[in-house]
């Protein structure tokens, strides 16, 4: 297996600055700060690096949208990692922190930011304190702070802890939260590259996206494109969880099949049970019927769509044949009811009523009409909210009812 992101699995102690440097650490930053800023952005654009937080938007294109008539510029690393089933960013930050910080530095240089923030979910308390130490070590070694490596470029990186709110992973809610407000999404446009943090142009990128950047600068767009597919280049960390023998993070080229991830790397399904469904994008995911066609589908941003779901943050939750999906959607609705920020009425009320219905159906007290009503409420929420959370809350519900009707017939 080739590790571009989880390099600590090849190089022990790479979270120590001298070990990181001995293994090519900061070479990309040294190279980048001698390049023209536009060339750095163009290299990332040419590499086709797509946002790893879920949306899959091309990172270099996002950087090129920064409004150069409005200053200062900011870079914010989204380390709010809260999608049920996702646990990759934490491993990067704990075990390969310098590559992540180097990625932030290169992104900041490319967009002309002199201050960058890492927004971590409050639960990552220990990770935040660990990163503070690593930032200090980088400053002492001359890779952060004033006049980096003898150039005119200066950068400070700060950590900022959230306090428990899934919605803050949405980039505009994250910015509100950073500004000391409740984390509720903003109306877009304007998008953050025009008006972001403190109404200034801001790039918000996921931890894994930023950690991919040093490899691109060191090896060029062509070197990066040796991995993955044409439209989804590079490697991706797949967080594998649920009913599987070996749950964990697996860094694989985009385009690897579900079968390879779940059976070759994940060791298959425990206790002699069979695979029933897959949620490729965590709790926000539609459920895929785990037939041969689905298992042989390459996991990239395009192909997962063909089997009726999205790749999202690639948090692959495996569901075996002992699980009733009435139980499962009651879990996802409990989550979304709790996490809806309350700003948009269809999401706030819809999540509440959907959860009431899933509770009743799961308890065996529902009727056939309740299942129809549940699906009706879900489709009424769709397309009527400011951010994707409302939409996400309906995915598992609608796909379960449509693709696994027998689970609901058995309960009513």
């Amino acid at each position, binding site marked *: 297996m080739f590790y571009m992101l989880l390099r600590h699995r090849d190089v022990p102690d790479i979270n120590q600055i001298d070990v990181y440097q001995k293994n090519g650490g900061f070479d990309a930053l040294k190279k980048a700060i001698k390049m023209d800023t536009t060339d750095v952005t163009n290299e990332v654009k040419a590499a086709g690096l797509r946002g790893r937080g879920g949306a899959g938007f091309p990172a270099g294109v996002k950087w090129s949208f920064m409004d150069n008539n409005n200053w200062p510029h900011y870079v914010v690393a989204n380390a709010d*990692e*809260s*999608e*049920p*089933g*996702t*646990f990759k*960013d*934490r491993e990067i930050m704990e075990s390969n922190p310098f590559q992540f910080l180097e990625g932030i530095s290169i992104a900041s240089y490319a967009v002309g930011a002199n201050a960058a*923030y890492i927004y971590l*979910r*409050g*639960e*990552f*308390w*220990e990770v935040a*304190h660990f990163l503070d130490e690593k930032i200090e070590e980088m400053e002492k070694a001359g890779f952060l702070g004033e006049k980096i490596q003898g150039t005119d470029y200066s950068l400070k990186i*700060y950590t*900022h*802890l*959230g*306090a*428990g*709110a*899934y919605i803050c992973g949405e980039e505009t809610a994250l910015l509100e*939260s*950073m*500004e*000391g*407000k*409740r*984390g509720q999404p903003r109306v877009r446009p304007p998008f953050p590259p025009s008006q972001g943090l*403190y109404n200034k142009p801001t790039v918000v990128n996921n931890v894994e996206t930023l950690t991919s950047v040093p490899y691109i600068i060191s090896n060029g767009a062509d070197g990066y494109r040796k991995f993955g597919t044409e439209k989804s280049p590079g490697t991706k960390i797949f*967080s*594998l*969880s*649920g*009913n599987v023998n070996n*749950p*964990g*993070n697996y860094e694989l080229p985009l385009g690897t099949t579900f079968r390879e991830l779940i059976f070759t790397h994940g060791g298959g399904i425990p206790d002699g049970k069979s695979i029933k469904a897959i949620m490729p994008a965590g*709790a926000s995911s539609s459920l895929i019927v785990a037939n041969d066609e689905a298992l042989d589908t390459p996991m990239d941003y395009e192909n997962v769509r063909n089997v009726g779901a999205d790749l999202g943050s690639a*948090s692959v*939750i495996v*569901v075996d044949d002992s*699980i009733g999906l009435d139980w*499962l959607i009651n*879990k*996802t609705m409990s*989550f979304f009811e*709790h*996490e809806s*920020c309350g700003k948009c009425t269809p999401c706030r009320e819809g999540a509440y009523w959907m959860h009431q219905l899933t509770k009743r159906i799961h308890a065996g007290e529902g009727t056939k009409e309740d299942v129809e009503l549940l699906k009706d409420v879900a489709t009424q929420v769709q397309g009527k909210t400011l951010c994707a959370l409302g939409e996400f809350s309906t995915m598992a519900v609608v796909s379960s009812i449509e693709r696994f009707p027998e689970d609901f017939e058995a309960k009513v």
Partner: protein
Amino acid sequence: MSLAEKYPQEIEKVLAKYPPEHKRSAVMALLYMAQREEGYVSKKDKAEIAELLDMTTTEISAIVGFYSLYHDKKAGQYRIQVCTDIGCALRGADQYLADLCEKLDVKPGETTDDGLITIEEVKCLAACDKAPMFQVQSGQGIKYHEQMTIDTTLELIEVLRKDAKEAK
């Protein structure tokens, strides 16, 4: 004592992270400071933070209410926050929580008779491959405990009780 009297240098350090005209960004860090001693944000602390950051106490209360790691009521010195979200639940977290509650003779949300341990059921903590798991939130911060059993949990609780006793 006020927060400004107790933690003057730390407050200064937090404020220095943000542009001076946006000191409101420091509210998250100051609320954690306020929780250090009693595990919740008191009315007095809300008023002080509001004044320090040019906000209203209503705005501070709205933030405390919005985020799940801020509390405005006293609970046990250690909050054991067990994840029972979908990933953990598929790996037995619901049963684990039920067993733990039975051993401690509490329900989720309740505190043990000695006033030290509160058991809470929480949403995803980004450790789905290491269930059953929980975090312990106390005034000192937050710490993860993964791949836990009832026995290892009870051992940890004994250590926490000992720590609390020694601190007194």
